[in-house]
């Protein structure tokens, strides 16, 4: 086995996992607290990438572009919540799915009108556009390393907000008991709007970090939305901790599995069979994991306390 490749793939796994976590955190909060299925979360991810590409083009600096993107996606999230989603909380999940699917189409078309059908490129500054030797002989792209660091940083920040601050207490209390905190003087509508904006900003953050690696294009939010849904189902809907652990798990299994499954299968199967089966199995692996988790723990790995009781 190639240890350097393994190390690189593990880092790639963390990087994908942390991107997924940024998306999953917002989605799981919105789902857990507001009982709202928001398929358009991937669109906010896409908007993050497009905003960042545009702002970077205007200012000539990726860092400033990235900084401007956060409040912009936050505001966009607030507008979407106030204009569209607020009316959907009381409706059933099917209505929410249809309406937010409509939002996906809206965002894709709007993006086509504004930015054109061809994707954009986010140019990276010099210091991020190089490789770093994590250990001697193992170069790794600096930007991917930065994604990992920033991802952990945001995860830590989110943990502190949710577990230590009054906002976090209200988010958790809101998940278990919406009406009651309203009757104790909390403006739930405002709280929901804030939480949604926060979730949007996190999704935008993920989008702007994925932009330079993948490509900034229409529909980029849809494929990652599926993975994100898998993450929150495995983690337990409404649980930030669950989302974090499941996101890392999915990132690692998907990335490491794809590169090492052929070798592993080669040990037990004839090489011809292994070569054809490996790609199929590796792309199924995370769904197999989801099925397994759901069979053993139908509420996910970390169901938030007080839910389903």
């Amino acid at each position, binding site marked *: 086995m190639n240890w350097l490749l393994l190390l690189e793939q593990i880092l790639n796994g963390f990087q994908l996992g942390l991107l997924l976590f940024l998306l999953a955190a917002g989605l799981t909060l919105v789902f857990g607290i507001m009982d709202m299925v928001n398929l358009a979360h991937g669109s906010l991810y896409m908007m993050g990438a497009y905003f960042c590409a545009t702002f970077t083009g205007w200012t000539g600096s990726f860092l400033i572009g990235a900084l401007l993107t956060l409040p912009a996606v936050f505001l966009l999230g607030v507008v979407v919540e106030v204009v569209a989603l607020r009316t959907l909380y009381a409706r059933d999940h099917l209505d929410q799915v249809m309406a937010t699917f409509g939002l996906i189409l809206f965002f894709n078309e709007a993006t086509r009108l504004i930015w054109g059908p061809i994707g954009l490129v986010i140019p990276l500054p010099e210091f991020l556009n190089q490789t770093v030797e994590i250990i001697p002989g193992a170069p790794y792209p600096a930007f991917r390393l930065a994604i990992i660091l920033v991802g952990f940083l945001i995860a830590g920040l989110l943990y502190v907000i949710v577990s230590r601050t009054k906002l976090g207490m209200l988010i958790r209390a809101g998940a278990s008991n919406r009406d*009651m905190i*309203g009757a*104790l003087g909390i403006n739930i509508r405002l709280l929901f709007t804030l939480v949604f904006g926060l979730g949007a900003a996190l999704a935008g953050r993920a989008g702007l970090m994925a932009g330079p690696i993948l490509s900034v294009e229409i529909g980029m939010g849809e494929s990652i939305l599926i993975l994100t849904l898998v993450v929150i189902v495995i983690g337990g809907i409404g649980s930030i901790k669950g989302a974090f652990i499941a996101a890392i798990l999915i990132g690692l299994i998907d990335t490491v599995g794809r590169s090492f499954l052929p070798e592993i299968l080669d040990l037990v199967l004839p090489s011809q069979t292994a070569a054809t089966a490996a790609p199929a199995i590796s792309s199924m692996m995370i769904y197999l994991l989801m099925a397994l988790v759901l069979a053993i723990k139908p509420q996910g790995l970390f169901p938030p306390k007080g839910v389903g*009781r």
Partner: protein
Amino acid sequence: MLEVNAIDSFYGQSQVLFNMSLAVKDGEVVTLMGRNGMGKTTTIRSIMGLTPARHGSIRFRNKEITSHSPYRIARLGIGLVPEGRLISPNLSVEENLVATANAGPSGAGRWDLDAIWAMFPRLRERKSSMGNQISGGEQQMLAIARALMTNPELLLLDEATEGLAPLIRQEIWGCLRNLKEEGQSILVIDKNIQALTEIADRHYIIEKGSVVWEGTSRMLLKDQMVKRQYLGV
């Protein structure tokens, strides 16, 4: 302080309150009694804005609050201790108190964590326990303490001692007695006539969504007919 004037309230199509009226004056402890399903909880929910009244008016401190949303009513100075307590299971005891705390309408309320710990030493001992790990009696104390932490001018208690052990009940009544001595206005629902007549100034008995009897504790204790007919005692 609180005037409920001829309200009608509905759950969907079915009307629960008919021309319901009651009043609580400054510093008064008033009770709402009656059998199950007569509209006691609905009255509380209508005052709080959770089940808004369709007709009639509710005024608090001379402000019309009939169609206000619950959080605005709460901020005007009404603290709710709901039926079933509704403690957040995923928050610790201390977090349950702090999450929704505020200094009250005057901005200078007397309730903070220290005052709560002094009144409920048991809660202090359990302050790091999660809301679902404490006993029913402790949950009820926590629900009262949580409402006090919003520094309300009027406390609404829906089922003050239901389902609690006798010793815990004593403790809850003792705490309400202390609150009354401090001048706290309270509207309380409970079935324990003995304890209620000792603490409260006035009583309303409600039957099928309207008030059928009102009077002082002495009048209630004397009136055997009322007790038999409406309270099943």
